[in-house]
């Protein structure tokens, strides 16, 4: 094989030597790099597309259908719905459904598909693996938030029950995924959460963000761009058909209702739980001011969070700005006797109360 490649390259070189022309060789180079790029582009390359279109694994189809049925248990699900939602061809969906009926995972109820008990258990398992993976990606890797869902979507089909157990143990049997969704236990127990969409809150109501939906991706990316964090307290300032405005951690956020609908909030009624209005993000600290650290947002995870705690950014610590950067970031914060430089994306996740 290798010898063959060497011979081919040799031959090409020989040809080029005798009919060398810089224009041609540059053209050959450009064309061949374009071909290589088209073929091997990550996630969009032709090779990738080819591999994926031929490899419609039945298991994956079935598991994807199960998830759709699980997540949309209130809707009436038809084949058309599944084709639209999953993007598989009709024939693939139909043969998948046939298999599922054979193995008692779904049944027909007035022309709509419903999960059997067995199907429901299977779906819960898939959801569990998906959310465990998201948690893993958040805690133990450096992948960007926006990529967690896609990777988990692939991994959920490749992980067997033992591996899922191991993953859960490694993560300390977490209860929630990084978006705030509950992770079912191995026995299928799911923590209850009592939440309503942010767009459903009335003016003046106070709540705590407990979930940010990562689906659809376009809306999720908009929310990420706003630096809205899970665990933050919010207070609604304005809520109408064109926009939802709320106050949180010293800043005002303005979202379209459809975007706000993807943020789930737990309403705080108990006066004691409601945070002081003076709690702001560390980025709001100005040179010359001092503040007390209130805590670190839930959005800071894994090693980064631990590192911040180790460095002394714990509740009650005094903090002030020691050095501003010629470029604006990172900023040197004076904390517990030492100057520690943090980037803005870290400082955004530290909550303080100014003196």
């Amino acid at each position, binding site marked *: 094989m290798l010898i063959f490649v060497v011979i081919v390259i040799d031959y090409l*070189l*020989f040809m*080029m*030597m005798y009919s*060398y022309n*810089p*224009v041609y*060789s*540059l053209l050959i*180079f450009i064309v061949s790099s374009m071909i290589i790029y088209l073929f091997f582009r*990550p996630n969009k390359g032709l090779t990738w597309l080819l591999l994926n279109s031929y490899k419609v694994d039945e298991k994956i189809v079935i598991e994807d259908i199960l998830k759709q049925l699980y997540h949309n248990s209130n809707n009436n699900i038809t084949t058309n719905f599944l084709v639209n939602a999953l993007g598989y061809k009709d024939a693939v969906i139909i043969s998948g459904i046939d298999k599922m009926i054979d193995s008692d995972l779904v049944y027909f109820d007035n022309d709509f598909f419903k999960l059997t008990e067995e199907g429901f258990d299977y779906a819960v398992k898939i959801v569990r693996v998906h959310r465990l993976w998201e948690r893993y990606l958040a805690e*133990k*890797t*450096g*992948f*960007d938030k926006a*990529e967690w869902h896609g990777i988990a979507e692939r991994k959920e089909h490749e992980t067997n029950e033992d591996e899922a157990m191991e993953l859960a*143990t490694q993560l*300390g*049997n*977490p*209860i*929630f995924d990084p978006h705030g969704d509950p992770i079912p236990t191995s026995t299928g127990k799911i923590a209850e959460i009592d939440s309503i969409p942010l767009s459903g809150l009335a003016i003046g109501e106070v709540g705590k963000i407990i979930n940010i939906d990562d689906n659809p991706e376009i809306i999720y990316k908009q929310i990420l761009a706003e630096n809205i964090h899970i665990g933050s307290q919010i207070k609604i300032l304005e809520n109408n058909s064109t926009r939802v405005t709320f106050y949180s951690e010293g800043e005002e956020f303005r979202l379209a209702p459809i975007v706000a609908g993807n943020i789930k909030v737990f309403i705080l009624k108990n006066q004691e739980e409601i945070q002081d209005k003076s709690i702001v993000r560390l980025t709001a600290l100005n040179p010359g001011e001092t503040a007390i650290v209130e*805590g*670190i947002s839930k959005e800071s995870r*894994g*090693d*980064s*969070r*631990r*590192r*911040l*705690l*180790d*460095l*002394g950014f*714990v*509740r*009650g*610590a005094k903090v002030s700005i*020691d*050095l*501003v*950067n*010629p*470029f*604006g*970031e*990172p900023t*040197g914060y004076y904390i517990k006797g*030492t*100057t*520690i*430089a*943090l*980037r803005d994306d*870290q400082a955004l996740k530290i909550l303080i109360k100014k003196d």
Partner: protein
Amino acid sequence: MDKITIKNIIALAEELRWKIGDDFHDNLAEGIYADAAEIVEDAIISKSNKTARLDNKIDRIVTSRVWGFPIMFFILGIVLWLTIQGANYPSAMLSDFLLGDIRPVLKSLASGVGMPWWLSGFLINGVYLAVAWVIAVMLPPMAIFFPLFTLLEDFGYLPRVAFNLDYLFKKSGAHGKQALTMSMGFGCNAAGVVATRIIDSPRERLIAIITNNFSLCNGRWPTQILLATIFIGAVVPASMSGMVSLAAVFGIAVLGIFFMFFVSWALSKTLLKGEVSTFNLELPPYRPPNFWQTIYTSIIDRTLIVLWRAIVFAAPAGAAIWLISNLNIGDQSIAAWIIQYLDGFGFIIGLNGVILLAYIVAIPANEIVIPTILMLTVLVTGMQAGEGAGVMFELDSVNDTAAILKAGGWTVLTAINVMLFSLLHNPCSTTIYTIYKETKSKKWTLIATILPIIMGLVVTFVVAQIWRIIAN
């Protein structure tokens, strides 16, 4: 001990973990600091409110918008200038001693004991020459550069450089401390790779390791200066040639920095995006360095270790260089065959077979690339220069060197491409070995080795084609 009881303990731990929830770590960390605060409250009797924050005053200057960057470039410039200029004299002395004084003694010793020519050639002209060469050219610059750098490090200035530049590095997915490992790379890439230990975030550390090679190291500065003087300085009027060749060398170094940023960015977006990334940068107080101790330890810890590794690799390379030039297959030496074979490919990327072979056999140290090129050029052209097949040499006269290279078919394009290829090729074997030691991964070592070669081939190829299209 009873396996079941232990299983039970672990199961209990898991159950408790579920019960106390996600905040265990936070609570523990806060608890420890709360205890610490109480103890300190007890123990500290007096505390000056505003401690003499002289540090802060220095910091305000070295990180200021106006002075921060000029100070930084000034210091780096001084360090590099002292290294390159200051090393000339001791290098010449060492070279005179090891090559001029010792080598003849060895030679006469060898003939005295009746050593056959091939054995003495192999040992003295091959192994000894390469080792002596590497010592003569590597030791002085490193013995100047490392202590200077270490003094700055111990004083506490370098973390401020990381602080000043972090924003630029963040944009390309890297850590501000990479500014330091990069500068260290200007001295020696192997040392730069070791220095990446200061970066405690896995992803950024790998980026710094893989891209360190884009810092033009001590072994490559002289190559750049020589070629720029001979070929680039010569295209402009003599009055400007000094300035222009200096600018060309500077341009190559800046191009290296550009590639460093670009590759850092690309790696962080592709291969390395899943590696854990954290950031923290402590700005420690300034402390007067322990001058003599620092000099002593930096020579012991950094210079000699790197030098030793280079020697270990130089010896077999010297042997290889001598052997390929002296062993014949048919009517030609092995070197001549390989050069003939590589000439075609070399031509396409604007180089030649001699240069490619020199880069292959001189992998232990960039310092011996030019001597090898000169020797091989003489070998294939049959010129009268040097000391014969397989004996590397260098000439004091720039004009004589130019004559040999031009006889070897060099043009301005060849020189430009060698300068580019000197920047963009595999790290020297010492660095490759160091990368493996530091990453403990064959995969990253391979990537760090292959990536710059591919870039070098692409860049020289494109430059050669465009040059020829324009020239015609």
